């Protein structure tokens, strides 16, 4: 029934007062006073902390912060000390000696020695041996890391003494210095069996959850899967650490939100910005944009097996170099860059991207975009036009090429439209349709393991600091495995083995040049373009952003933790910007600093950001006011009603 009014009103007021009283002396909620936290954003999922399960760039970035490679990558991707302090090789190049720092410690204080290297590498070798021995194969996690040792031909690892480890390889090569294998702490990892490390789905799988122990400059201390990973400084780091105290790597579901967060200073670095956002950010104060050249490309691949037995191509034309070559004149690669990539990219040429400044060469006999030339070449190669202007192959069949691409690479739909149009002008009909990624992988697997069921398709490859991995899948022995063009050239296979074992740079460059031209001319692939990596970062909180490699690289998400350790405190520098809040009241703590700095630099007179308690005040007051209004209203209503009845 009705309750007396005064107690109700009183209760509302008391509640309001309580709320108010707790807000005001709330104070700052930032982390330890004075900490410089670097916040990076990416649209990739942060899914794994066990390096063996790494798939995406973010995963690799995470483990190069936690751990050292045996040999790290320098400013231009040259080998620099990592876990190992120095190294020498024997004259035949097949025996390496690595020296480990005598007083190096793991982040938990345990001594880091040669034994850790031996244990880690031996784990890989054991897994490879097990894989070779079994019919099913065996992989550590995703199996991405073993090839770094197998491609280098590693056969034996030994720890002579705590500061010396030796590695024996089957053949001479420099790939050992580029092995992207993190050195793991034996005293943590050896507690688990190989299966527990390798098999992520077992009940006792070792996930390597925080706090992670490593020798890298930062260790993961907090992990919210799918949200963020937080890193703290390694107190025992052997190298220079820079100004950063903590790193938070944040995942974003939407790049729009990520860009907004960059603008407000809630993150300091954004990876994977889209072309139009990138353009808009160029004029944003205190934000720098960097267009990194990608170490990879997008290609148009041909089923070079054509319609031979065991291959699912629709026409014999696909197996003909002349046909593929002619089609290459009907692709306007710059147009694709402009349309699909918004101008951010480079027209494609050879299979070693320009990113590899030391190894990339332009093709000797480069094609141009010339429809008439393409037609001439098709005619000359014997592909006649029939009555309805369609090309016939040498078996007299109308050529109708099926073009596809995986649904995960949706920008290829734009490329497809162009290809259909251009090839159509030549009289070659192209039917374009997207395929679900899993099914596509099934389809393009070559014989005897797969049906090789496609004509032409588009996808992309990402490379390593060494171009070797990008050369691998043109080997004939990869047919049925990684090869999706089924290219079969004894000359190529021979050159591959030669370059792999060649340690003289000039000589190797010559071999690679020959390989690039060979593949360009024979065209199992037409490289469409080299994508660009679009990153952006704030300049008002951290300075010292250095691209790795210096030409065409990006400060972070490169190869290793260098970019992080080079960062300096922007407000500590004698910068021209009037950053009066450098020392002071709000401190440089967390988000307070970024907002404070952007306050000084940008013109917006913004209050402190909402992570502090103060800006919740208007919200609470608003609600309180509403409650009071409602209560007062009810009081008045009751009074009026009473008066009516008493007439």
């Amino acid at each position: 029934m009705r309750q007396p009014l005064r107690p109700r009103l009183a209760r509302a007021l008391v509640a309001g007062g309580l709320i108010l009283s707790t807000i005001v002396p709330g104070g700052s909620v930032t982390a330890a006073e004075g900490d410089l936290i670097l916040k990076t954003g990416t649209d990739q999922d942060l899914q794994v902390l066990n390096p063996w399960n790494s798939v995406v760039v973010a995963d690799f970035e995470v483990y190069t912060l936690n751990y050292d490679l045996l040999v790290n990558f320098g400013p231009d991707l040259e080998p620099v000390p990592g876990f190992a302090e120095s190294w020498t090789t024997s004259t035949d190049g097949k025996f390496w000696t690595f020296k480990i720092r005598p007083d190096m410690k793991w982040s938990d204080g345990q001594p880091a020695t040669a034994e850790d290297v031996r244990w880690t590498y031996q784990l890989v070798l054991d897994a490879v041996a097990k894989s070779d021995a079994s019919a099913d194969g065996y992989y550590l996690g995703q199996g991405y890391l073993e090839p770094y040792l197998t491609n280098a031909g590693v056969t034996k690892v030994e720890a002579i003494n705590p500061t010396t480890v030796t590695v024996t390889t089957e053949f001479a090569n420099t790939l050992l210095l580029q092995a992207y294998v993190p050195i793991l702490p034996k005293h943590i990892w050896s507690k688990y069996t190989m299966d527990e490390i390798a098999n992520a789905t077992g009940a006792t799988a070792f996930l390597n959850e925080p706090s992670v122990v490593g020798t890298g400059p930062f260790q993961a201390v907090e992990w919210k899967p799918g949200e963020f990973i937080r890193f703290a400084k390694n107190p025992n780091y052997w190298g220079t650490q820079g100004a950063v105290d903590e790193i938070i790597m944040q995942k974003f579901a939407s790049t729009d939100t990520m860009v907004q967060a960059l603008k407000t200073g809630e993150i300091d670095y954004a990876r994977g910005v889209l072309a139009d956002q990138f353009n808009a950010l160029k004029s944003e104060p205190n934000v720098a944009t960097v267009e990194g050249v990608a170490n990879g490309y997008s290609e148009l691949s041909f089923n070079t097996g054509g319609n031979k037995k065991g291959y699912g191509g629709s026409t014999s034309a696909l197996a003909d170099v002349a046909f593929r070559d002619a089609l290459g004149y009907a692709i306007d690669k710059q147009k694709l860059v402009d349309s699909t990539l918004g101008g951010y990219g480079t027209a494609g040429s050879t299979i070693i991207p320009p990113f590899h400044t030391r190894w990339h060469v332009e093709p000797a006999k480069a094609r141009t975009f010339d429809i008439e030339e393409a037609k001439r070449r098709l005619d000359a190669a014997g592909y006649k036009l029939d009555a309805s202007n369609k090309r016939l192959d040498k078996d007299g069949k109308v050529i109708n090429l099926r073009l596809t691409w995986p649904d995960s690479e949706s920008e290829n739909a734009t490329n497809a439209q162009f290809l259909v149009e251009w090839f159509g002008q030549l009289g070659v009909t192209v039917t374009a349709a997207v395929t679900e990624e899993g099914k596509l992988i099934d389809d393009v697997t070559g014989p005897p393991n797969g049906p090789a069921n496609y004509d032409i398709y588009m996808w992309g490859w990402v490379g390593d600091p060494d171009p070797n991995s990008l050369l691998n899948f043109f080997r004939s022995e990869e047919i049925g495995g990684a090869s999706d063009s089924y290219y079969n050239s004894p000359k190529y296979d021979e050159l591959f083995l030669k370059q792999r074992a060649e340690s003289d740079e000039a000589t190797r460059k010559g071999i690679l040049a020959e390989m690039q031209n060979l593949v360009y001319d024979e065209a199992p692939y037409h490289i469409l373009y080299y994508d660009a990596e679009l990153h952006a970062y704030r300049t008002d909180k951290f300075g010292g952003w250095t691209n790795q490699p210096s030409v065409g690289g990006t400060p972070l998400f490169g190869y290793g933790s260098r970019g992080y350790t080079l960062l300096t405190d922007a407000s500590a520098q004698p910068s021209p910007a009037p950053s009066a809040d450098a020392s002071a009241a709000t401190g440089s703590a967390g988000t307070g600093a970024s907002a404070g700095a952007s306050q000084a630099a940008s013109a917006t007179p913004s209050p402190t950001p909402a992570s502090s308690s103060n800006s919740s005040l208007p919200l609470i007051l608003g609600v309180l006011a509403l409650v009071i209004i409602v209560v007062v209203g009810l009081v008045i209503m009751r009074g009026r009603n009473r008066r009516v009845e008493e007439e």
Partner: protein
Amino acid sequence: MTTARSMSAARSAATVPVDSRGRTLPRQADPGQPLLVVENLRTYFSLDGDTVRAVDGVSFTLNQGEALGIAGESGCGKTTTALSLVRLLPSNAKIVEGAIRYFGIDLVQKSDTAIRRYRWREISIVFQGAMNALNPVHRLRDQIAEPLRERLNLKAGAARTKAGELLELVGIPKKRGGAYPHELSGGMRQRAMIAMALACDPAIVIGDEPTTALDVMVQAQILELLERLRRDLGLSLVLITHDLSVIAETCDRILVMYAGRVAEEGLVGEVFRAPRHPYTQKLLAAFPNIQADRRTLDVISGSPPDLRHPPPGCRFAPRCPFAMEVCTEVVPPEVTFDGVRVACHLYPPGSDGVPVTVPPAPIEAGPR
């Protein structure tokens, strides 16, 4: 039954007006005045830009303990007249002229908020076909208790008890009070409505076609109930119906309306015995007489006028068998003969008031 005192500061008994039954009246009431006097009431609707003159100059008086029946065809304005009493009109209707004096208090002058005081506590209504007049999601006893709690400020327990008493009063067993409307028959729902209407002990109960939707047997029961209540409680009734037999049974006086105006008004016995107005005669003749010979019904040709553009003069003139030229020009004045008031040019002021009878229709042969 006594009403609960309102919760304001106590007033001395001497200054509180009471009516003949001892009921407390509103402060401004004058017990010496008649219960209800309606003077020249005009209620107009605005519809698509036109003005519908639904009630166009209606006057009558109701005394304490009386039962008045208002009769007429559909659309003659009888319901609108009744609703105007407590201003239950839709938003496009307005009382444009006239006075409604309840014990001398002019209800027309009261504001929309002030009129609430008079609803249910002084004048209550029983609607027709209580299919949806009762709220389907509330139990019976809760709906009856509602005015007791809201208008009389009774506490929950007292209200529940009183609600039970009211149900018993109208012949519904107390234990059925927990039922929902859809679980009751039509007759029981109507009884419940009556119980609800009596909750605040009103002076006047208006029945708007209270038995129209019921079958004849139930109809009889309801009428009997109404009569009993009127006797026992001393209520005044206003019964609106097109069914003259109901009025003949239950009412003391009858008011015949046509097209928004009063045609004839007087004691039931007088009017039924010797109807003067041609419309009243036709109305009475239109009812089949079960004891007379079988013949076709004597219908009134034509239909009521469009009240947006009513004919000048007498509104019945177009259908009246006695229509004269003056009827289409001048509005007939009201004249009283032997207690019967009639507005018809057949009975001008100063005439002897002898009824002029409409000849009956010829008997037509037909199968027996």
